[in-house]
């Protein structure tokens, strides 16, 4: 028994090390100076750790970091609230054709987002909308509509008597949703917010296509940073710092909300 437990932990430690290693190297090299890297000391500890690479990375990506925040925060907020609302309606206020809407959302969930790229670009051009962060936010919110399925599934286990009680108490649709349904959706909300934030923050293609240079999200800007170095001398330390900078918010979200995440994932599975 003891032996088996030790073995399991040893194995887990090995995997943890395996997955943490690249991150570790990135962090190490981001703290080295350009001169130190040119000597080829990739695997060594930084001799004199310094933040010049981070400063350079922030100078290059700071603006796009803010762009990404300006993009992700409204998209995540709007799309999860909208998803909760739609999920509630789909699940509890069945209307004529609601099954078809459900199937439509399901299909949309499985289609790769790249399929929409060209039609979307043409539509925007025809509508006369220029590339901007606002347009990108709208696009993401619209394409996140299938998130409603998460909430719909959660609300399947939601007792109808509770809604009936609230209606008898005089609650209209919005009071029902805002005072009863939404506060009881926390576990799914955490899951959806994490998934959605990660997706939107890491999204590259739409971010590249539907924005101008000054409104680029960080993923697109990071790719450009990598591209500019090609052919010449590459500032690996700056690139490492930049990549870490781009990954930090999602890391932070997982670290902060990770516990709720696993709890939320199983929340629908076992009725508590």
């Amino acid at each position, binding site marked *: 028994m003891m032996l088996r437990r030790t073995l399991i932990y040893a194995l887990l430690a090995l995997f943890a090390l395996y997955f943490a290693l690249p991150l570790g190297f990135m962090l190490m090299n981001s703290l080295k100076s350009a001169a130190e890297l040119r000597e080829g000391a990739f695997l060594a500890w930084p001799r004199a750790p310094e933040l010049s690479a981070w400063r350079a990375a922030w100078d290059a990506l700071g603006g796009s970091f803010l762009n990404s925040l300006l993009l992700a925060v409204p998209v995540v907020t709007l799309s999860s609230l909208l998803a909760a609302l739609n999920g509630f309606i789909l699940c509890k206020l069945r209307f004529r054709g609601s099954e078809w809407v459900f199937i439509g959302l399901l299909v949309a969930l499985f289609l790769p987002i790249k399929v929409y790229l060209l039609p979307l670009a043409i539509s925007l051009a025809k509508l006369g909308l220029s590339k901007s962060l606002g347009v990108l936010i709208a696009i993401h919110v619209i394409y996140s509509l299938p998130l409603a399925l998460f909430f719909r599934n959660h609300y399947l286990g939601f*007792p109808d*008597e*509770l809604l*009936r*009680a*609230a*209606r*008898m*108490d*005089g*609650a*209209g649709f919005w*009071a029902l949703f805002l*005072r*009863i349904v939404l*506060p*009881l959706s926390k576990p799914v909300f955490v899951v959806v917010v994490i998934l959605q934030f990660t997706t939107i923050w890491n999204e590259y293609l739409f971010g590249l296509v539907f924005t101008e240079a000054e409104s680029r999200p960080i993923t697109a800007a990071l790719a450009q940073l990598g591209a500019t170095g090609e052919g010449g001398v590459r500032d690996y330390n700056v690139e490492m710092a930049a990549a870490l900078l781009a990954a930090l918010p999602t890391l932070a979200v997982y670290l902060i909300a990770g516990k709720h995440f696993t709890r939320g994932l199983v929340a629908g599975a076992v009725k508590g």
Partner: protein
Amino acid sequence: MTGLAVKNLSKGFGSLAVLKNVELEIAEGEFLILVGPSGCGKSTLLSLIAGLERPDAGEIHIGDRREEHLSPQERDIAMVFQSYALYPNMTVAQNLGFGLEMRKVPRAEREATVARVAEMLQLTPLLGRRPGQLSGGQRQRVAMGRALARQPKVFLFDEPLSNLDAKLRVEMRAEIKLLHQRLKTTAVYVTHDQVEAMTLGHKIAVMKDGEIQQFGTPDEIYQRPANLFVAGFMGAPAINILRARIVLEEGRPGLRLAQEGSRLHLPLSNGRLAAWAGREVLLGLRPEHIVNARGEAPPEGGLRFRAPVELVEPTGADTYVVASLDGQRLNCRVQPSCPVRAGEALWLDLLPHEPSLFDPSTGLRLG
């Protein structure tokens, strides 16, 4: 004044008719019980009164207002649910005050009402807790309190005690009755428990298959059941149903029960039954009308007979004896002091009363 009236109400789901032409009327302040087996439509009727469902046809009057077209919010009704349906995200105080808040009652008044209701139901120390931290009985009280706080025209109860253990159920039943005596608000109470029905109701509607089988006072329902179903549904232990024949003796109708060899004859006071002379009927006898023989002779108008005992069930206050009468089982209530053993014969007295007789083909009450 009318408290609640239901006229010709019908409701179906798909091709299934759940309620068929239901008619009910109670005066203001009366306590109406809807009782019946699962699937009889009693909960659907309650939902229609609440406005949670819309009827296919018919009218619902609350007070002097016609309300079947109104939404639940527009009706002045509060409901206690079987699952209590407390808002898990709110404290007890918020649960109690939610209905008032939704109806835009000013904060000060709301708080005063919540405090008063909490006091009435002994919930004051629990006001800051959430439903998850309460016991079943406490949750039940909060559910009641939420309805009380609203001071509605009509209270609806949907099997409110069915999730409580036996002892607590009896306590809460008494409490509901006391509250109603104090508040005198019209109430409709759905249950499948016939004891709750008998103890709480001014009026009882016994339902089956979406139809009202009988609507009357508890006494009428119990003493003069309108048909075999009502007779069998109300009363525990259940009523005995025996085959018997109506005969004419000196021009007066009587009831003949065959018993191996001898024939038992029970005079009937209802002269109209003479029309049934010579025909077989079903006789309903409540266990409390068949007791162990006391004294020299059976009471005037009663009947004494001897029957073998199959089973003895002492309950403490009473002992129930299952005797056999021509192969038909007869549940009787005897004194606990009566020496009786299974397998032995026992002298029994059928007490004089107006027996319930039913038409064997329709199941309807005769006379």
